[in-house]
């Protein structure tokens, strides 16, 4: 990484922190908007994780919700059944998500599966996850879901404290992303994203780096999933359904720009604003998401960051 890009990354992370930290002050103390803003942070963190997996190593994981959900359910169920502290069970959830994600990646790289088959395998996994949660009724309460109010760490109880705690987590994940990208792995990811075959020929251990990206990304997904569960106050299969997590994150990342530091954050902001704008339409929002995906994929594949780079002629990270 060149010094200028390194500096740009640092400035960008600092700017994100400052701007997002000022958001609650502009909401005028409205609890409703504070909650939306906090959920926006959670989805940004999901998008950062997906960016590592898909944006940098082209592994189309369509099981983001399932990975986040398996971590969340493991943590919550253990807290309820064995009355453990959430601080002890969240790491277990993270490890579970990381292992699952790493395993998918390892198997698909080993079997030489193309992007589409990775998509199908992970899609099938998210269907299995969904059905397992519905079927293991005794543990998970099936469709009804589990209340998580008061179970989680006190900082995630709601209000501005939770906002700042989750913001701290988002900034932490951006720092992890930045460190990963400036390391040897980052260079390898770049090469893999450009041309996997050429990367392999240049002596890059493609398997290791793809599995690394998937594992780190999935661990992050697991962590965000648990935060989502305790902050949301309620978990059910719907919370982690394909339509509620994967699609939103995909749109967010496409909007913002894949493989960029600012992409998930910018995409998250724009998506949240758009989502609020179409809320009055009620159930039409599914259709709006669909149109957004199609339009974005067809005309705006490189996202906001690439557009701004071109317009402003500055090397945005």
């Amino acid at each position: 990484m060149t010094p200028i890009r390194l500096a740009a990354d640092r400035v960008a992370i600092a700017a994100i922190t400052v701007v997002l930290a000022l958001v609650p002050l502009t909401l005028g103390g409205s609890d409703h908007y504070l909650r939306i803003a906090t959920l926006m942070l959670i989805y940004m963190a999901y998008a950062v994780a997906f960016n590592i997996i898909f944006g940098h190593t082209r592994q189309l994981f369509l099981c983001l919700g399932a990975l986040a959900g398996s971590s969340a359910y493991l943590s919550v169920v253990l807290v309820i059944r064995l009355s453990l502290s959430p601080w002890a069970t969240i790491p277990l959830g993270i490890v579970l998500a990381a292992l699952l994600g790493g395993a998918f990646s390892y198997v698909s790289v080993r079997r030489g599966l193309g992007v589409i088959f990775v998509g199908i395998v992970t899609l099938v996994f998210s269907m299995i996850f969904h059905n397992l949660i519905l079927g293991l009724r005794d543990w998970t309460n099936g469709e009804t879901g589990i209340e998580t109010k008061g179970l989680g760490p006190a900082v995630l109880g709601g209000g501005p404290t939770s906002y700042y705690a989750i913001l701290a987590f988002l900034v932490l994940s951006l720092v992890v992303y930045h460190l990963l990208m400036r390391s040897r792995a980052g260079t390898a990811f770049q090469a893999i994203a450009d041309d996997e075959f050429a990367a392999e020929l240049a002596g890059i251990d493609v398997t290791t780096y793809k599995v690394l990206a998937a594992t780190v990304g999935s661990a992050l997904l697991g962590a965000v999933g648990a935060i989502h569960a305790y902050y949301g106050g309620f978990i059910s299969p719907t919370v982690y359904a394909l339509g509620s997590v994967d699609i939103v994150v995909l749109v967010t990342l496409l909007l913002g720009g894949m493989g960029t530091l600012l992409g998930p954050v910018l995409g998250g902001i724009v998506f949240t604003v758009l989502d609020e704008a179409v809320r009055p339409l009620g159930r039409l929002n599914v259709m709006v998401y669909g149109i957004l995906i199609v339009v974005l994929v067809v005309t705006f594949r490189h996202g906001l960051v690439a557009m701004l780079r071109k317009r402003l002629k500055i090397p945005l990270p």
Partner: protein
Amino acid sequence: MIAILLDGIVQGLQLSLMAVGITLIFGLGGVLNLAHGQLAVLGGISTALFLGEGAHPVWACVLGVLTSGVFGLIMDRTLLVPAYRCAGEERLLLGLLITLGLSFVVNGFLDVRYPSVALTLRLPTPSFSVGDITIRTASAAVALIAVVTFALLFAFLKGTLLGKVVRSIMQNEVGAALCGINPARIRTLIVALSAMMAGLAGVVQGLFSSLGTELGNEFTSFALIVAVIGGVRSINGTLAAGVLLGIVNAFASYYIGAYLTLLILLATAAGTILVRPQGLFAFRT
């Protein structure tokens, strides 16, 4: 026992009818159509709407299937063009995302516009018996429709020059183009044909029980599982996998419950991709 077997075969044929479209579009266009179940639902719902307008049931079904076909044609000629411009992985990815978006659009539209429309077709005689087995007329009709459709499809692919052209593109698009074949036109034809078969599968669902707007995703996932297990490039394989899955589904639902069955089917699909990505029954098309 035999009743369950027959039921399974008929269900399987219906699944194959949908899955074969996914196989064809993937084999020919290199696009995995995630909106395929939605095409089926579209056919069924428009049949119901035509029926509501007072059309004769047969004409309503024909018009419904045609609606699916026209929709497929428009999809191929407009939405999928950006995908066709790319090659290889890029095309796969773009096609996947575009059809994913499209499936949301269709789902959302039908849910909002026609939330309570459902297609139920009733035949004059509910059942007849052969020997000591009672067969539902609907099942027999579905089996007949599916078998005839598949026979026509195979006759088209094996017997006609156009079918040969289709198979040549499936084997090698660049090679076919070098021989003076225009892949884009054939692709449009096949996408429209696949969409019509999906629409037929949707209409047929109305014979079994009833088809509502919410079935789209379920159709897509089942068709995808069948196509994957059969091999996403093999038409014979898809047909075999559909029938096999239908039988397994019928028996397993009867003996161990629908919930575990679904899990087993999903696990089989995942296992197939990992062990034999070309599909369990991948013979030459």
